[in-house]
């Protein structure tokens, strides 16, 4: 069983790492919306180039590759399905034996490809340079319920714990003679005996965890004090205003022309 952590963020100490999480979050939304508002290849390519140069500026460009590869099936299926079967197909681009690739479909597929890549890269800017704790802390300061902030952060800790538990249970069930390899039916049959104990254990643990939390004042009302003070980000307002202006002008320009 692979040991794992859910944190993808890399500490590199670039200007992007010092930027406040909300500005980066706003960048992600601006970038994704613009890439879908604009409909010609060159402008979307430009939006993608901005996201990639931000990744390079944040010194995290090579860590985006595994994240892109997760979406590889989606990208491939877009290219194949739209390239060969798009309804407006008329102009033949390539003909390899019985397979014909059409220009119209390929053009649309390429546009969607750029958009999806931009979506992944723009989110990459946020998730590769921001500690989840910092993001949640900022959101709590902006008014997110601290109880819900706890929920978000505890997911990141509980999932690796459960993965370890899963490894243990898989080993013990195998030791008891459960077959987990073989025909499809054998594998399906082993699903419940593996999953059942993990689920039961984790639900039983939530009972203890909720008692522990309540004892520590989880439901306390009143003003909370903070262990970590986050320094206000100097250029936060200017950058957010800039992003908002860019987004609005792109939308207005698109409606007008």
């Amino acid at each position, binding site marked *: 069983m692979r040991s794992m952590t859910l944190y993808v963020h890399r500490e590199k100490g670039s200007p992007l790492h010092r930027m406040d999480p909300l500005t980066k979050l706003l960048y992600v939304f601006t970038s994704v919306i613009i890439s879908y508002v604009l409909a010609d290849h060159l402008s979307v390519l430009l939006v993608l180039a901005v996201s990639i140069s931000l990744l390079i500026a944040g010194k995290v460009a090579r860590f985006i590759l595994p994240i892109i590869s997760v*979406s590889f099936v989606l990208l491939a299926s*877009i290219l194949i399905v739209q390239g060969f*079967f798009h309804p407006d197909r008329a102009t033949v681009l390539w003909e390899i034996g019985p397979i014909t690739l059409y220009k119209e479909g390929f053009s649309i597929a390429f546009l969607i490809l750029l958009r999806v890549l931009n979506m992944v890269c723009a989110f990459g800017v946020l998730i590769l340079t921001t500690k989840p704790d910092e993001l949640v802390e900022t959101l709590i300061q902006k008014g997110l319920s601290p109880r819900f902030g706890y*929920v*978000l952060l505890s997911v990141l800790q509980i999932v690796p714990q*459960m993965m370890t538990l899963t490894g243990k249970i898989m080993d013990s069930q195998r030791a008891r003679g459960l077959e987990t390899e073989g025909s499809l039916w054998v594998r399906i049959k082993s699903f419940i005996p593996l999953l*059942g104990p993990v689920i*039961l254990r984790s*639900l039983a643990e939530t009972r203890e965890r909720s008692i522990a*939390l309540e004892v520590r004042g989880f439901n306390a009302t009143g003003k909370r004090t903070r262990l970590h003070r986050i320094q206000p980000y100097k250029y936060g307002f200017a950058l957010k205003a800039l992003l908002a202006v860019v987004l609005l002008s792109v939308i207005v320009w698109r409606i007008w022309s």
Partner: protein
Amino acid sequence: MVRNRVWSFRFSTAALVLIPAAVGINYIGKLFVELLKLPLWIDSIGTVLSSMLAGPLVGALVGIVNNVIYGFTTSPVSFVYAITSAVIGLVTGIMAYKGWISNIGKALVLGFVVGLIAATVSTPLNIAFWEGTTANVWGDALFAWMVAKGNPLWLASFADSVVVDVPDKMVTVLISFLIFRSLPKKVLTMYDTEQEIERL
């Protein structure tokens, strides 16, 4: 007894703590499917189970948190489907409350309805973001065939989602139902908001 507690917005600590555990269960389900090389996704057992245990709102929250965390840690594309996950939690929670998990036959109907609704919610998202494909080989093959035959895009895209979502959600709900039924009472009562506590 107080009615309509299903819609309570004031979550108890137990319900809040259930959310991360349920997201974890979603991850574990997906992990087992990969390890055992089963041909479905089965990535929402936690969402469905938490809806059965603690109601539609907790289920919907589990769905959203699941996709947000998955988007933050593995694949940003999953942000797009946060709405679908929330709806899965909502529908399961409401139908479970109305008694659609009292026996295995009803649970299968519940799974069918959830799958159908999940496909309906996913279709506009698929069309808006990637012109209708779903990245599932079987679904996309059907999509390509239907588009090539001249069917409208929305119909092909809906068929693409349905052939994957309906079997997947039926299996998911079935597994969740089997686990839910075998849970000890001690666990079930934790989330029971309708229970009256007797005072001396």
